[in-house]
């Protein structure tokens, strides 16, 4: 049989998944937010690009380990219903992880903002916080949505799907020198099966500061498509913690794009407890000297979960610092992926770029794929990358047990110790402790058989 035959069949099959999104767009284009603004043209262009490229699949180098096409084809991708009725957050440790922290809360159900469940009052002067639809006519929203990084085209192309179909999201603008008084907590709940497309826009003007938490939770077999566009003005500082824990049948596709001006600081942490298939993309571009980005993460996976973390740091200007550490534990038949790329453009001297990834396999059926890359076109730089995959040390377990610590507790101590090196980098103390507790919970409760 000629080798092209099955591939053709696969492509035809997979085209159907993309077609459902395109049909949704055609059907809803006139009612999508911003239909009477500049966005309509932008959506149309995005639809055309998406229709041409289709959904990403594993024959694309940057999607080698995560076949979004196939995952969506299997899951089915009908649009999720607007959920207007009473909804309660799942009663889980993850859903309430940040509950004890004094914070503003915005809740989105099936991708739509729910004012009745949100609580963001008495914001400082100079803080503008709205559902996305309300800021669409504004120029800053347009600038953020239109801006591409282009350092990893194959991965960034999936943003077109979001641009064409985005329904809602959060728009946060903080004016010069203003500090958001307490963390802003964004809760995204998938209450029903189906697709939702969320776009978040965050702009911090010169010297502005904010802390943002994101929780992505849900029990539905949903497809959550989230794009967060961030722009940091000179010397602005953003701390950002993303926590994700969704259903085994859910697909999570999150892209964060951040443009950093001179002396700005981004401290980003991703904690993935996973779902069926998840992919978290962080694209950072330095556009002014002396800026810093800490892009770190941890993940704990079990059973059949698949989680892909993809980080691209583009040092386009001199004198910037980027540090990345991702650590994960994999149990059951789960599969982890880390792909990273640090690009140092010609002339980006005095770049300090580090990218490390370490994984711990707790089961023989778990798998990890790691691909850290450096692309360096400048000579006066400090760059390092590394990757390890290992398992718990039998000697260490024996030693702990020889002191009377039962085996399960010994393993939990070692797993927590492993993850803590990453979790210690969470940029908010109470959030850090909350995530550490989740890591212990994951081991003792939610994990699969070891």
């Amino acid at each position: 049989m000629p080798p092209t035959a099955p591939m053709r069949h696969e492509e035809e099959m997979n085209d159907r998944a993309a077609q459902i999104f395109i049909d949704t767009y055609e059907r809803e284009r006139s009612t999508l937010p911003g239909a009477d603004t500049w966005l309509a043209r932008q959506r149309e262009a995005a639809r055309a690009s998406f229709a041409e490229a289709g959904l990403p699949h594993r024959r694309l180098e940057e999607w080698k380990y995560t076949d979004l096409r196939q995952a969506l084809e299997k899951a089915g991708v009908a649009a999720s219903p607007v959920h207007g009725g009473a909804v309660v957050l799942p009663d889980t440790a993850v859903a309430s992880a940040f509950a004890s922290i004094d914070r503003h809360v915005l809740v989105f159900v099936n991708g739509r903002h729910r004012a009745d469940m949100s609580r963001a009052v008495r914001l400082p002067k100079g803080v503008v916080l709205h559902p996305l639809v309300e800021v669409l006519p504004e120029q800053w929203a347009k600038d953020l949505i239109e801006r591409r990084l282009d350092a990893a085209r194959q991965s960034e192309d999936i943003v077109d799907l979001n641009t064409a179909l985005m329904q809602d999201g959060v728009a946060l603008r903080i004016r010069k020198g203003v500090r958001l008084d307490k963390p802003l907590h964004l809760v995204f709940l998938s209450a029903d099966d189906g697709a939702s497309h969320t776009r978040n826009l965050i702009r911090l003007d010169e010297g502005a500061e904010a802390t943002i938490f994101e929780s992505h939770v849900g029990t539905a077999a949903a497809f959550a498509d989230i794009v967060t566009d961030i722009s940091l003005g000179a010397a602005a500082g953003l701390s950002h913690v993303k926590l994700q824990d969704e259903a085994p049948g859910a697909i999570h596709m999150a892209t964060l794009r951040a443009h950093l001006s001179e002396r700005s600081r981004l401290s980003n942490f991703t904690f993935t407890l996973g779902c069926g298939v998840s992919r978290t993309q962080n694209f950072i571009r330095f556009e002014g000297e002396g800026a810093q980005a800490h892009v770190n993460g941890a993940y704990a996976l079990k059973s059949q979960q698949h989680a892909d973390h993809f980080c691209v740091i583009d040092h386009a200007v001199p004198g910037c610092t980027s540090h990345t550490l991702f650590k994960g534990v994999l149990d059951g038949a789960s599969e982890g992926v880390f792909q990273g790329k640090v690009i140092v453009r010609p002339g980006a001297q005095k770049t300090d770029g580090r990218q490390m990834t370490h994984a711990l396999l707790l089961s023989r059926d778990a798998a990890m794929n790691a691909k850290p890359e450096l692309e360096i076109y400048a000579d006066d730089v400090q760059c390092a990358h590394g990757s390890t995959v290992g398992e718990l040390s039998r000697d260490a377990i024996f030693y702990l047990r020889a002191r009377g610590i039962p085996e399960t507790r010994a393993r939990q101590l070692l797993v927590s110790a492993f993850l803590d090196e990453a979790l210690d980098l969470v940029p908010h103390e109470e959030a850090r402790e909350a995530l550490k507790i989740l890591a212990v919970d994951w081991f003792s409760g939610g994990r699969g058989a070891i």
Partner: protein
Amino acid sequence: MLEIENLHVKVDGKEILKGIDLHIRAGEFHAIMGPNGSGKSTLSYALAGREGYEITEGAVRFRGQDLTAMNVDERAAAGLFLAFQYPIEIPGVTTMTFLKTALNAQRKARGEDELDAVRFLKLVREKAKPLNVSDDMLRRALNVGFSGGEKKRAEVLQMALLEPALAVLDETDSGLDIDALKTVAAGVNALRSPERAMLVITHYQRLLDYIVPDMVHVLSGGRIVKTGGKDLAHELEKTGYAAYGADAA
């Protein structure tokens, strides 16, 4: 306290211990000496229950119970302590957390109440002081970056805190200079009591100058070939192990 009868142990399919008989009563202090490869460490690991140390024949009773039927942590909770020749480094787990987890796990296994942070801290400081174990050392990851002396002092601290009925000290003198040896020996001697027994495994007689045994056994070729009083150690120092069918090492 400990009765070992005709103990045979295989490691990687090879028989290392070929019929050990050893009885230790409460309050007694025994030393096992022997050349490299005689099976000294195998005996200590087999007692602790390490994976890969297969007991093919014989019996071990500890405080009236069948030791071989217990898993590693059950043996520890029952009062058996092995001081490691090479303590394992545990990155990311502070010495303090480790000590507290171990002590409370043992207390829980014995049906005793767990110590809270305050009571534990008081206890650990009290035990750490005579061993020159500083607060800084307690805050560091267990054994990570510890010097040879620090590792052995940390082992003795664990022993002092866990108060085992039987302590097996495997080559506790290795890697120690004379001052560190004295500190460690003083820590061990402080734990001598009529209720506690000790088994010290060593290649050299030097340690036994500081920790004086009641009985000395010579292990060679997987068997105890001679048993005597503390003077046997001095005798061995002069004659070496050659007389017992092994090369002087």
